[in-house]
């Protein structure tokens, strides 16, 4: 018993000291292994147009390989489901279906989040130039769109997380507007 505890302690210390730099592959592995779960989000949008940020919150569910559902409960209720190429938005009793191809900017932004959650490195790199820093305990993934048209709307998507779970998503727009989504396990 004691020996086991000591071993764990040593391992932890060892890990802390060595803190090997995290590779993208390793991160994607961790993300892939993460069990599907519903998480809560809080989103803050800052726009030059507005004096103060807009807040919204709700729940997010990711189901591998490619289904992302975002249920906003405040300020209004809204449900957004992205699956494959199809985007379904329900808002104020109205349901609208669209293809991601129709909205390349939205598609790129969603793809950044979705491919990260799915641990799909190649897909991510197809849409973005990807840089990663930090270690398994606290990593930061910076995504810069490759497509010029998309870049007019989205300058950068930054994701941060711990191990296999994403904790924040930051979107920076070229005009200086930005949004920050903070994520926490549900049912806290």
């Amino acid at each position, binding site marked *: 018993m004691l020996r086991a505890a000591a071993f764990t302690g040593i391992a932890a210390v060892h890990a802390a000291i060595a803190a090997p730099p995290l590779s993208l592959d390793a991160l994607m592995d961790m993300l892939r292994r993460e069990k599907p779960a519903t998480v809560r989000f809080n*989103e803050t*949008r800052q*726009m030059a*147009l*507005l*004096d*103060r*940020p*807009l*807040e*919204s919150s709700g729940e997010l569910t990711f189901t591998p390989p490619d289904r992302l559902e*975002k249920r*906003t409960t405040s*300020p*209004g209720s*809204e449900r*957004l489901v992205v699956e494959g*190429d*199809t985007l379904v*938005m329900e*808002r104020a009793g109205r349901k*609208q*279906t*669209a*293809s991601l*191809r*129709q*909205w390349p*900017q*939205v598609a790129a*932004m969603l793809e950044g989040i979705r491919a990260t959650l799915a641990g799909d490195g190649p897909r991510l790199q197809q849409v973005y130039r990807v840089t990663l820093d930090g270690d398994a305990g606290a990593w930061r993934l910076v995504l810069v769109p490759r497509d010029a048209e998309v870049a007019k*709307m989205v300058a950068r998507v930054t994701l941060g997380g711990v191990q296999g779970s994403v904790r924040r998503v930051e979107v920076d727009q070229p005009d200086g*507007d930005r949004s920050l989504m903070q994520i926490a396990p549900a049912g806290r």
Partner: protein
Amino acid sequence: MSASRCRAAVALAAWLVVLAACAVQIAHTRFVADLSSFLPTAPTAEQRLLVDQLRDGALSRVMLLGIEGADARVRAELSRAVATTLRQDARFSIVANGAADGFAAERDFVVAHRYALSPRVNAERFTVQGLRAAIGDTLDLLASSAGLLVKPLVARDPTGETLAVLESLQGGQAPRVLQGVWSDGEGRRAVLLARTRASGSDVDAQAAALAAVQRAFDAAVASVGANARETRIGVTGPGAFSARSRTLVKGDVARLSTLATAAVATMLLVVYRSPLALLLGLLPVVTGAVVGIAAVSAGFGLVHGITLGFGATLIGEAVDYAIYLFVQSGERGRDADAVALRGFWPTIRLGVLTSIAGFCALVFSGLPGLAQLGVYSIAGLVAAALVTRYVLPVLLPANFRVRDLSVAGARVAALARRLRRLAPWILVLAAAALALLAWRGDDAWDGDIASLNPISERDRALDARLRSALGASDARYMVVIRGSSADAAIAGAERVGVALDALVEARTLEGYESPARFVPSLATQRARLASLPDAATLRSRLAQALQGLPLRADRLEPFIAEVAAARDVPPITPDALEGTAFAAPVKGTLFRDANGTWTALMGLRLPRASLVDPRALRAAVLGTGVQGATFLDVKAELDRLYAGYLQQALLMSGLGLAVIVALLAIALRDAQRVARVMVPLAAGVAVVAAGHVLLGTRLSILHLMGLLLVVAVGSNYALFLDRIGLGAGATETTLASLVLANATTVASFGMLALSSIPVLSALGSTVAAGAFLTLVFSAAFAAPAPVDAPNP
């Protein structure tokens, strides 16, 4: 001798003169191919509008394309390639596949005219509270997932009118989009919508457009490569259907009539032993056809393709005339003119009169198409009979003798004797058939005009699926608003639209199409623009409205400027849409007729699998009290039209039957003989009709035509058998000629019965079975005298 030679010369000369006159008439004839000119001259204004719409209207120009097979990505690629090709094709005025690219002109138009177009613009909207509520909604949207898309317009349009207009133009559920292009609900097909420039009734142009679609698709498949090999394109729509049905009917008629002609020619050649006689035997038919076409052309001003196709079939009886003449005169050798015709001609004459009485039912049926067929048949039969009587004997080669049929005839006579025992059973069978028909009553007849449609169930199902995928009205329920000007019609459509909106809200309706969405009435536009405040007022209201909201008034200067400018923009007219994709739907639903009346059409879309009571829809529309507004249940109206004409045709057939009986009574002067002729005919008709009903076929107007033909052909059998029964002719050869004539009829119509096209197989099976039965029945009822105890 010289007198007879002189008569022959006169007959020949008269024949040639008539042929030449007919040729001149035909040369000046307009031939039309579209099915709709076969449609009735509609009695009411609504039905006329309906028929016009079906023939030339916007609805007739819609073509729906569905690409299936492979995966969504490949289908989308094909959809894009096909759309690109067809957009460069002058045959199409619009090709849409849901790809969002290339709609800049439309977006600019909506943004520029948003205050005239938005259904939400009114004085209330621009009060302090109204502004606050509308801007609050926009801020909610900004916070939502769609925020990224809304943001660029907020400073110009903080009340969200652009979105309101786009939503209203969509008129309900937008089609599903997969891989950037429209798809059906199940995601199994890419869907495109095209409009042809030519009207749906221009079958040649529709066929060309159809071919262009197929070529574009084939090229797209070739360019996409191996992945696309397993894909197919399906094209539906009124024009595509009429083009395809023409091809189908043409193909089947050509194939089957070639087969039938070969079979009949072989039979006749075996009997005549003379190719020249075979050709001469065609003279009555050919003359009949020429005279028939000329008569229709003279009487109607134009000749329908269907008349040409079916007409020749209807005077097929004329082939029999030559058979009767050749076989029956052959037995007497050279003296045909003098002797054989003495018994032959009165019988043929009576047969022709009987047929005319039957075909009169078609002439007076009220359906122009059937009337054409009736006139064609009557003129054709008279001409054919006259040629058989006066021209053929002159032209027949001197040494002409058909194969001796007396041996075969004797066998037939023996068989006919045995048939007589069947007479009571035939009566029982006929009684049972009549009872069945009486019991089924109107149910035996198919009042659904679709029963005439050669388009397969599969194509119709595909059409329904593509329409529902696009949220396109299936043109089943429509509201028609007529007005003295475009604006009056639009204003009416707007008011009806208010009632329809309530039905959409209640989910009774899924949506509807209206030209007023693209071009609101002048009054509405003016009212909307007049409700816009001036810059100073708006600025001060905004200052109040924005209190407590995160949006600052000074950010909204573009909004204030654009609202002020919008107040002075003149209202949109239909012409303003030119150059945008909105022009086509407006042209299709807002048009002027020849006498200057404007019509606005609103297609209603019902929820899938719903049992909507059309009466409720009608009540809702009429409840608006809009003048000139009518609710149209297109299918019910068409069915009513068709059923009315079917009824009329049936009534006329009944009258025709009475005339036939009267004719026979006058000619035969003997009730028993009249019965001997009429009973087999009536029994044959009843048994064939009952047979169809027993097999689950509902009788259509084509069956009725077939039955009239049975009477026409069968009356000759009955009359000849009646005559030999009286011992007036050479029994065995006459019998043989009847069997030969019957065999040719059964062979040619039997071929037609094999067609996969309902109209053709209906006609074929009815006539083949009917002709055979009437011969058997006529033999069974023939008088016993010469058959049992031949004259010495």
